[in-house]
């Protein structure tokens, strides 16, 4: 679906570069994201009540 030119064009309007992944790749990105933002969240004391 993400390689469909019509879908790509729709995402382009939003400024999104469509890119799929396997569930495993997505899981790894989730972990990497948490590692990047953990220290910032702690330092800036960002809390959602």
């Amino acid at each position, binding site marked *: 679906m993400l390689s469909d030119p019509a879908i790509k064009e729709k*995402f382009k309007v939003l400024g999104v570069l469509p890119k799929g992944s396997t*569930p495993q790749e997505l899981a790894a990105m989730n972990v990497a994201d948490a590692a990047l933002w953990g220290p910032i969240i702690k330092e800036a004391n960002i809390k959602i009540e």
Partner: protein
Amino acid sequence: MGLSRRRILQSATAAALLPFGRSALADTYPSRVVRIFVGFPPGGGADLATRIVANGLSEIWRQQVVVENRPGAGARIALDTVAHAPPDGYAMLLAPGSPLVQALLFSTLTFDPATDLAPISLVGTYPNIIVVPNSSPFHTLQEFIAHAKANPGTMSWASPGIGTVPHLAGELFKHRASIEMTHVPYRGLTQGLMSDFIAGRLDLMFNTTGSLLEPVRSKQVRGLAVTSAKRFPDEPELPTVAEAGVPGYDVSSW
């Protein structure tokens, strides 16, 4: 990843959990309406991305796919709803960024994002854009940084909500640029943020390309920089934050 769990679709700061692992689902899946939850109000980038995915899936599946907006609380309401939904693939989430990051933001959670949500697929990636109102005296990010440094704590900056990637990107920017400014969180782009911003009540905004590309192109607001390490192909005149004086800065939402 348990196929028996709820599904997240993740896209760039908006990844969705798509029903991969269809083998674990009933052969007839989807035999009824599928709902994709998104933690932002209609009209913003996350919402529009979700609608593209929903329409695409609906065509492939020949089944109705409905977008359910659950804005507020840093997208927690949407997360909560999907995490507690029956794990049958009929409740999906288009998550802006990692649910594990969300877990770091909430003091209490009623679910474990590592086990109660199952990743399906990335949907796309995009940077954030930093803008100022047209009435702003600042025409480059360097000018803004210099002023903010000389006048600590006097500048305000807006994001589409506490804990959103634009909020985190702004905090990282403050840290790396060594400036102090006051955060004003909104709920997505549509609930007063743009009107307040255009009226000049805020000094700076971090938000997604989905929310800000068009306002920048139509000159409703003035773009200063993109947060990714490379310039954005569709708006190449916008410098990166790194080019604008904050070396090594790179936030590309996914």
